[in-house]
């Protein structure tokens, strides 16, 4: 599944125009996690997107030390303050989508009242922005409690409080808002109702390609924790050539062995750690290895096939970037022989396509099914692929704000492999050494 590969004259993709996603739901329902994940996916596809979090606007205008009355939605005195904060956020969104170059924005607030929602919808539509509501409903008290513990009490609002006080304070906040919560009931609106993090969805009036992609993505989202490892394929006997699809060199074989040892060692270390901390034995969890169909990649992966609870899967989509006319040329060769192409490449390294070659954007687009399956997976996954494919996969999990132009230069030397643990508020990253003697 892939993004369309053209830009219209407005600089936007898909001819889809601008879209604002308006979150609806009580606190601790996973709105922010869902929003950040969606933004990450959209940006990676090439759709310029940003999330606008109401809490931040509130803190900026009024600080963190505000009276609990602010969250009492029946309180008329604080209503003006709340509206001012929301309107400020909405104005920023409109600016981002009209003149700021953005195509998709998320208005991450509770938006509990139906009348106010219709007003917000009208405001956006007046600027030719298409609204899509996503309502996060959680019927499972356990999930809500876990959210509060994991996420809310580390927010700036509670950083100075002790955890138990923070939890009860937060629950009070929710309880005060609950009576004003009107679930979406308007068949004219475009909306997605998400129940229990993707267990059940109701989708209404979804128009357009981009909106249906949002629905597809939300279907695949979950909040279980698992780890993703990224490792480079071993060195081949003909490194400069893509077309020759050469097998591993002797050094490549040695690397593959050391990689296998290093990864297994790391997994055992983590299993021990989890056992100590929580008493749970996860040593029988499967590690899934995904590798490319290129010879050097699956030869590297073969070293894992003999280990017990490991399964290896070859995927054509994980192949490296096809260099086309730059086959067997170094960057300085290209600069010397094709100076125009080189200049064009420098202007936009991520999107530039040499003759008969792929661009990094093409590779990202090609990798989308892999990314979506990665999102769905609850098992740990190790990806063994050429550096160009790893760059695009890493870029998906990288912190917001990594510019496209840096992606072609990200380094994945064979001296390390990367461990990524996506969490609600970001992705934890570690680089772990692959060497003859361990760390």
């Amino acid at each position: 599944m892939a993004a369309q590969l053209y830009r219209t004259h407005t600089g936007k993709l898909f001819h889809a125009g601008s879209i604002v996603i308006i979150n609806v739901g009580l606190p601790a329902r996973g709105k922010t996690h869902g929003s950040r994940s969606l933004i990450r996916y959209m940006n990676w596809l090439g759709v310029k997107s940003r999330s606008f979090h109401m809490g931040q606007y509130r803190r900026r205008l009024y600080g963190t030390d505000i009276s609990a009355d602010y969250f009492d939605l029946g309180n008329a005195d604080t209503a003006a303050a709340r509206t001012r904060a929301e309107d400020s956020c909405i104005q920023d969104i409109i600016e981002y989508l009209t003149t700021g170059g953005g195509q998709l924005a998320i208005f991450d607030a509770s938006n509990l009242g139906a009348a106010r929602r219709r007003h917000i919808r009208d405001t956006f539509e007046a600027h030719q922005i298409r609204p899509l509501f996503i309502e996060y409903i959680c019927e499972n008290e356990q999930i809500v409690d876990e959210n509060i513990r994991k996420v809310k009490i580390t927010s700036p609002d509670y950083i100075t409080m002790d955890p138990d006080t923070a939890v009860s304070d937060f629950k009070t906040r929710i309880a005060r808002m609950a009576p004003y919560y009107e679930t979406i009931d308007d068949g004219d609106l475009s909306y997605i109702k998400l129940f229990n993090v993707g267990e059940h969805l109701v989708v209404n009036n979804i128009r357009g390609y981009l909106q249906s992609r949002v629905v597809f993505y939300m279907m695949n989202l979950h909040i279980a924790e698992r780890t993703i490892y990224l490792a480079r394929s071993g060195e081949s006997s003909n490194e400069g050539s893509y077309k020759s699809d050469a097998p591993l060199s002797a050094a490549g074989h040695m690397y593959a062995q050391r990689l296998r040892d290093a990864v297994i060692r790391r997994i055992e270390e983590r299993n021990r750690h989890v056992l100590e901390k929580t008493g749970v034995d996860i040593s029988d969890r499967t590690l899934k290895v995904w590798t490319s169909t290129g010879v050097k990649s699956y030869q590297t992966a073969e070293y894992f096939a003999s280990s017990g609870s490991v399964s290896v899967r070859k995927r054509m989509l994980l192949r490296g970037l096809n260099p086309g006319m730059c086959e067997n040329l170094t960057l300085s060769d290209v600069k010397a022989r094709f100076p125009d192409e080189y200049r064009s490449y420098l202007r936009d390294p991520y999107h530039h396509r040499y003759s008969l070659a792929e661009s990094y954007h093409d590779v990202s687009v090609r990798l989308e099914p892999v990314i979506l399956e990665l999102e769905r997976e609850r098992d740990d996954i190790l990806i063994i692929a050429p550096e160009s494919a790893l760059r695009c996969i890493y870029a998906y999990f990288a912190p917001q704000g990594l510019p496209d132009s840096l992606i072609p230069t990200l380094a994945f030397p064979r001296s390390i492999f990367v461990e990524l643990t996506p969490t609600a508020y970001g992705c934890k990253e570690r680089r772990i050494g692959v060497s003859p003697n361990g760390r």
Partner: protein
Amino acid sequence: SRYLAWLGVNCRVFNVGEYRRKLVGAKLDHSFFDPHNAAAVDQRLQCAVSALQDMLRWFEAVHSGVAIYDATNSTRSRRKKILDECTRHGVEVMFCESWCDDSELVEANIREVKRTSPDYAGVQDLASVMEDFRRRINHYSEVYEPVGGDGTRPLAKGSYPLPPASPTIEEYDERLVSYVRKINVGSQMVINRITSYLESRIVYFVMNIHIAPRSVLFSRHGESMYNLDQRLGGDPSLSPNGHKYARALPVLISRLLGDQPVTIWTSTLKRTSETVAGLPYKKMQWKALDELDAGLCDGLTYEDVEREYPEEYAMRDENKFEFRYRGGESYRDVVLRLEPVIMELERQQNIMIISHQAVLRCIYAYFLDIGPEELPYLKIPLHTVMKLTWTAYGCDVQMYKIDIDAVDTHRAKPKSVRRSARKGRAGTGSCPSSAPSRPLSTGTP
């Protein structure tokens, strides 16, 4: 099933109506479907069970795949029976419900589709067909229980109870079952407990298809300079005849489509955009529509390939669908990368695609349900526009040849394939004979 099969998933449809037609014939009036007609109810159950048993036998034979059990399945007890049988045989179940309460839509459907159904073949009087069919629908409505209830979802408090191990019909809770409900042809959808990537892909597909009438047109680029030489790949311009074709296209297209709008999709290679230069419609380029990459053989003529890579040349003829050029692609690879194009095609209205021989073979095979053995040998001649129109029971294609000379680039499958005992270049090409990489995994291999 066409979509899944095209992506390489084993797929089979088991249509209970077909079983009924075989058992009791086609010319039945609506009273056969009356739930109070005890004898008929028995026969209908027999058909349902027979189809179910065939389906389970099919699963045992293929080990992994997707079966579509196509029937009305309107009652909870019927659905529970299916679910129990499948679970007993280790088969996962997902229900796909189509719900329509827009009476205009229903009328239009009855008119268009059922008029051509085998059940009414030869019946001339349209009014009586419509009336009989409406009565048939009423019989079903009497006993219809939508999946998971009436569509409203009561908000449960607390955590979900574990499902009882073998529920009775009273305990059978469809909120715990995988299902998707499409309402009024897509204005609303309900998606429940989708558990695997394959299921989510199926749901995405179901979300994107529509039944509004529209046309899809295909053509190859005009004859190119490389075509004249029988040369593979590259990025050549059009030959003089190719340019003539480009000039002749606008008249043909406006004849085929009249005033209707159409969007044109081309590849990023020159020869396709040169072909559409004279067309006044909206145009978009897709890299996914670029020709199959011949890797090391790019730019060579077929004679060159036979001379320099004899091993490759012979291997390709042995299994043209799976064969992957060294450093290039196979037909299977092209199918994989075309999936987004196909999905977008399903969503769109009128589209015209200008692309290349191998790519068009794959797209054509998708719409006409053609398998991998035949696909690489499909005839897609130059200077010909193909128009697809849909009916509910299939897809029609019409060919419009423009009378401008072009070389024939079609190579038939050889009668016998000779492989020389002498090995060519070490490890040239690749023709995996065991379990090629599949785009979708349907569980354990």
